[in-house]
């Protein structure tokens, strides 16, 4: 009997592939069952907002009615604004409901043997945190030899760093999975108020530019039988010459608002909406240019590294990667310290030490040798960091998921208030920079902390670390523009004006969004402090009676308003008025909030909520109405599951419900691979549901083979490092002493996992060990090491 190393996982955990419809019983798209016949992507980038509307038609090639799981990996900063499934000629849209109501509807639907997909904010699925970053819904029925049309719309904020903006449409599959589309159409419209330069469209999809000017372009791509092997990307620069000007865009529909034919959100409302305006300023370098990194005065970096249990797995690795990248960016004249924290704190050194190679390596070893402890006292950790912040030019870098369950207070508002009070009391308060990791990061708390002269960057589990880390580190080397405000006169002409960005640096865009009720003219004045010099930008704006351009503004404003209300709740506690307004706005503009759920209409059979990774113990979380669960294993074992009543929680959804458990032995002749266990669930009303989950027999760690073109590399040389690994591999990371870790990602063209290895120009000549480590879904590790010689 194979008694060990049986990892159970949700079907979608192994493949975070995007925009795919995975047939039931499968782990990856299978075009022999469900092929992607058509895919149309309409991308509208209007200043800093990208609206992506995707239509996909899948064809069922079988004589059976099929069902599948639709997955879409959401980029960070994006929110789903609509989702719909077509049932023949009927479009079935998703709806936003108050969370309690959504759960009632959900429970009602479940009793009818249907399962509406339920997307909620703040759910913590301990089976796989990646799930909260993946929009997922069961699609059924898909008629035999018929088609199923799906529509997904989401909005994404386009960040600006060092005058650069980038847009990525995630099409590249995770691991070795791939998807082909028979007819593929992309329409891209880019328009910015600020003139752009150096516009580059990614080479993977050769877009035809129909029109282009200094403020944008229109381009299309049409192809047949296209392999979706790479992301669709576009990068451009904002012209610094146009910096330090305020650009104002508006939207006002005086009649009862009609939905733009292509815009499925916001939904029509009963009464007329007010007008909305957005003011944006590209902040230039100014005349008092900052010192370059080399010439800048030495800095002191205090790294607060969260090594509590909640950071286990990917979050810890990503935080370590961020720490590694940060330390290697420091100059020897800089000083740093590492403070590990969980329920206690442990400092690398009593006081900051020079950032020389020896200290950096010792610090990284210190992190690696540290052990995890349960519980987190973020307040204590912040106090420890402030105690070491005794000099000017000090930055605190917090690497965490923001969880805090120990200490004087666990209320986010109070933690932030206490910190802010202590921070203001210091003679040299440090920049409070935060690199948030994980999909379940407590962004509300971290945003409040970052308001203390810092920045907040979040990387989600579905995103590569590199891009976000690069942006974070770039901002660290600059001082933010401080005391940034937007004055509007007459003040009565505009209401509820909110900043859209927490921290602004030179080379980035500061935006505000507000409401207006009557057409008028506004005087706007931006004030701030840039590189220790005041900055003032003025503009006059006409707020029109009618302007149907920029339809994203109402929803953008609503999101800002909801964020402000949530901040208020974080600081002052819940109030009925705030909650009611959040629910009203969320329903009107399709926002997922802690008080509302996005009830996606595609329906499926009831699914057990959580099957945790682990050894031969099968755990299933179900809705409270379930009265019995029986597992039918593929090797001939049928076992009822035991209800662990002490583990029950009242909530529904992934985090709550009833917990069921049984233990099993898989026969020893079962090969490594993925198997299905069938679950028969019966509720108190006597309804029976049949569900299937997969488990992975993973008795051997993944194997890795490094494909190195040469083992003699010159300083400054870059090579494409390739490696192959077992199919079960989930992440593949290359490490070379002294360099930040390199994530290797699947590349269809080279049929291997690939990443760029660059030897630093100042790397000492010698022999180094390059290791590539693979981790599979059961957290088994396999690695290979090769020696490389660094030459002059």
């Amino acid at each position, binding site marked *: *009997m194979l*008694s*060990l*190393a049986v990892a159970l996982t949700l079907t979608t955990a192994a493949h975070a592939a995007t925009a795919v419809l995975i047939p039931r019983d499968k782990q990856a798209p299978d075009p022999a069952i469900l092929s992607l016949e058509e895919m149309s992507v309409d991308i509208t980038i209007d200043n800093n907002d990208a609206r992506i509307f995707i239509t996909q038609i899948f064809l069922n090639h079988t004589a059976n009615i099929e069902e599948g799981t639709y997955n879409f990996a959401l980029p960070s900063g994006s929110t789903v604004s609509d989702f719909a499934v077509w049932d023949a000629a009927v479009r079935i849209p998703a709806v936003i409901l108050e969370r309690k109501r959504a759960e009632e509807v959900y429970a009602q639907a479940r009793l009818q043997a249907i399962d509406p997909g339920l997307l909620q904010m703040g759910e913590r699925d301990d089976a796989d945190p990646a799930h909260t970053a993946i929009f997922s819904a069961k699609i059924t029925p898909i008629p035999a030899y018929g088609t199923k049309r799906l529509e997904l719309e989401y909005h994404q904020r386009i960040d600006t760093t060092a005058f650069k903006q980038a847009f990525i449409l995630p099409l590249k599959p995770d691991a070795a999975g791939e998807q082909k589309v028979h007819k593929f159409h992309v329409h891209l419209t880019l328009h910015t108020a600020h003139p752009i330069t150096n516009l580059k469209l990614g080479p993977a999809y050769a877009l035809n530019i129909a029109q282009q000017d200094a403020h944008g372009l229109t381009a299309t791509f049409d192809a047949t039988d296209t392999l979706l092997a790479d992301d669709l990307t576009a990068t451009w620069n904002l012209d610094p010459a146009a910096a330090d000007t305020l650009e104002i865009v508006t939207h006002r529909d005086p009649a009862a608002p009609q939905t733009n034919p292509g815009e499925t959100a916001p939904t029509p409302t009963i009464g007329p909406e007010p007008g909305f305006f957005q003011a944006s300023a590209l902040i230039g370098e100014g005349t008092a240019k900052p010192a370059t990194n080399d010439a800048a005065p030495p800095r002191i970096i205090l790294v607060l590294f969260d090594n509590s*249990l909640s950071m*286990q797995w990917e979050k*810890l*690795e990503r935080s*370590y990667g961020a720490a590694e990248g940060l330390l290697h960016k420091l100059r020897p004249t800089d000083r740093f310290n590492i403070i590990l924290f969980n*329920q206690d704190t442990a400092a690398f050194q009593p006081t900051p030490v020079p950032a020389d190679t020896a200290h950096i390596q010792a610090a990284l070893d210190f992190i*690696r*040798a*540290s*052990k*995890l*402890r*349960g*519980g987190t006292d973020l307040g204590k950790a912040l106090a420890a960091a402030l105690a070491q912040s005794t000099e000017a030019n000090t930055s605190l870098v917090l690497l965490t998921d923001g969880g805090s369950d120990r200490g004087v207070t666990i209320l986010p508002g109070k933690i932030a208030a206490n910190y802010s009070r202590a921070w203001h009391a210091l003679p040299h308060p440090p920049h409070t920079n935060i690199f948030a990791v994980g999909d379940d990061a407590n962004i509300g708390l971290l945003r409040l902390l970052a308001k203390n002269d810092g920045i907040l960057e979040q990387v989600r589990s579905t995103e590569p670390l590199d891009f976000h880390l690069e942006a974070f580190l770039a901002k660290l080397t600059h001082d933010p523009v401080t005391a940034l405000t937007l004055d509007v006169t007459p003040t009565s002409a505009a209401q509820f004006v909110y900043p859209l960005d927490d921290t602004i640096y030179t080379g980035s865009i500061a935006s505000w969004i507000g409401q207006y009720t009557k057409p008028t003219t506004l005087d706007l004045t931006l004030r701030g402090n840039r590189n220790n010099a005041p900055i003032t930008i003025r503009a006059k704006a006409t707020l029109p009676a009618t302007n149907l351009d920029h339809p994203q503004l109402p929803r953008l404003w609503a999101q800002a308003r909801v964020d402000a209300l949530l901040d208020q709740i974080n600081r002052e506690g819940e109030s009925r008025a705030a909650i009611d307004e959040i629910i009203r706005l969320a329903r009107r503009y399709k926002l997922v909030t802690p008080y509302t759920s996005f009830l996606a209409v595609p329906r499926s059979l009831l699914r057990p909520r959580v099957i945790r*990774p*682990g*050894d031969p*113990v099968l755990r299933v979380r179900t809705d409270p109405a379930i009265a*019995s669960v*029986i597992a*039918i294993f*593929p*090797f*001939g074992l*049928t*076992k*009822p599951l*035991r209800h*662990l*009543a*002490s*583990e029950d929680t009242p909530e529904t959804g992934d985090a709550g419900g009833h917990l069921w*458990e*049984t*233990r099993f*032995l898989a026969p*020893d002749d079962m090969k490594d691979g993925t198997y299905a266990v*069938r679950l*028969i669930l*019966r509720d108190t009303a*006597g*309804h*029976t549901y*049949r569900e299937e989950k997969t488990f992975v027999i993973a*008795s*051997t*760690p993944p194997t890795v083979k490094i494909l190195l073109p040469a083992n003699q590399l010159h300083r400054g040389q870059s090579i494409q490092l390739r490696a192959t690994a077992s199919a079960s591999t989930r992440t593949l990371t290359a490490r070379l002493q002294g360099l930040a870790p390199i994530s290797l990602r699947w590349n269809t063209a080279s049929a291997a996992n690939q990443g760029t290895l660059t030897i630093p120009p100042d790397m000492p000549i010698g022999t180094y060990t390059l290791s590539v480590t693979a*981790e599979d879904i*059961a*957290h*088994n*590790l*396999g690695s290979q090491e090769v020696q490389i010689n660094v030459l002059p």
Partner: protein
Amino acid sequence: MASAQARRLLIISAAIATLLSLSIFAILYRVHSTLSDTSRAVADAHRLAYTLAPLSPPPNPGFEPITSPASFRSAAALEGHLFLAGPAALNMYSASGTLERSFRTGIDLPSAPLGPIAVARLRTHARPQLLIATAGAGVLIYDPTAQTFTQLLPANAALRDVTALATLSSGELLLGTHRSGLLTFDGKTLALFRTEYANIAITALLAAGDDVWAGTQDHGLFHTHAGITDHFDTQLPDQHIETLAASGNRVFAATPLGIALFEDGRPARTLAPGTFAHALFADTNSLTLSTLAGETQALALTSTRLHASLTETSDPAEQFLTLDTSGDLYAVRRNGLFRRTASRWTAVLQPTPAALTDNNIAALAFAPDGRLWVGMFDHGLDILDTSATAPTQHLEDDHLFCINRIALDPQHHTMAVATANGLVLFDSVGKPRQVLTRRDGLIADHVTDVVYTQLPTGDTRMTLATPAGLTFVDATGVQSLYAFQGLVNNHVYALAASADGNEILAGTLGGVSLLAHDAVQRNLTIANSGLRHNWITAALADGTGYMIGTYGAGVMRLDRTGHFTPMEGATRDMVINPNALLATPTHILAGSLGQGLWSYSRTMQRWTQITAGLPSLNVTAFATRDGNLYIGTENGLVRIPESKLPQ
């Protein structure tokens, strides 16, 4: 002239006719010959090697069972006797219900759990016999007259796992196998019944006359009749068939989502939709069913609605049957045989009380008070007075469930029980006092092993193995490490502390990590050492080194220098069960998966395989006290004086 011509024509015609006849005959002969050859070849191809011999179990070296529940699964009546079978024994009762004999697996019968039993008269015998399916030892045939067993043992081990039995009216025996399809035995030949059944997992069999119905694990239902086989899958509520029953022209197939009714061999409708029946009995007017949840209900065959006239909430019925001419319905439950009288079930036979509450043993340890703690694989914990002077104490709750390891704190004389749902700490009188889980800082809820060491301060430290790494519990709190800190693999299954307590060995799925001073000092794998298999399942300190059990390379010794030495005789492709290693002053014992007990004599420096006397060849746990060894298996617990092991 004309007549001569006519004669000539006649002669020619006759010759042609003769030639044609000869040709046709030759052709027919060749066709027949070819068909016969083909038939023989096909038959030969389907013929399977086997032995049919009187059962003569090897002598029991001295194992004595600690009684575990009978867990009856099946019953049959034969020549005035009543037989009830469970995985661990076949009990024979008199008509008055007196236990006459008990045939125990491993001692009187092969070391293989018993499956369903049936009474049939085989073609080669004049009188009915009792047929007993086993999971691993083929079919046992009991002759009540001679009071002897005969064993039908296929040569191919995969064919020995028999799940269902039935006999045709011709006296041929049908054997449903766990994964190798349906076999037939006519007394002389063992063969695949039909090609349609090859490599199918058979779950249930029903023979009505010469019609054969076979339920499968996930391929629906087969029906062979008049030389043809019908296959039903999409017509069923579900592809899994749990059990079958028949009455007249009706056949009932229980699936997880309802009972498929067949009339005259054709699917008619689904009864009790949504009901997962485990046992069925049909008569002309009603269908009695029992679910895995323990509900026994009767269904009037004129309705699709269940009549809840009979409802039981006790153990589910494993089988319904009639045993005598009265037509009374009996239910075999794990806790006895019950008869339906009027509308109630009354116990007819109940097994004698057992010392243990379950037979699937996962962990053993002696407490300082001399009581034996027995952890169950998917149940709780028994605390057993081995002298049988006090009743067994059974503990089971949401945490004390799925036991992996029981460890004694040598300093405080308390016990810790590692389970799939946390670590349960007991006080010195055996009461559970605290449960540690991930909420308390463990790196995972699932704890696979525990080892105690003493810190320089004199305090005790617990090191816990989990599938997510190691957790240390001591006076300073709870802290954890895993692959991030250098552990060779996150999945840790076995721990051992060096004799001086300064070093911890962590056996993982990916090799061995040696830790000292809270840090990984060294990782040993098949790539950088003499280790023959990376997957470590058991470990213990022995002398100055360690003994290592592996999943597929038997037992190895690891010395202080990191050098592995194979333990010759126990290093072939053998799987050592989790934590199934024990060292005594004279022996090292290893529990294997399917290969019994392995005993190493330190005197003779030789391994010996022991299979006789064990209730199962899957040996899972050990404990020792006062010269007695206690050996846990997946099918019961036995003890033996250590002196009776090969010295």
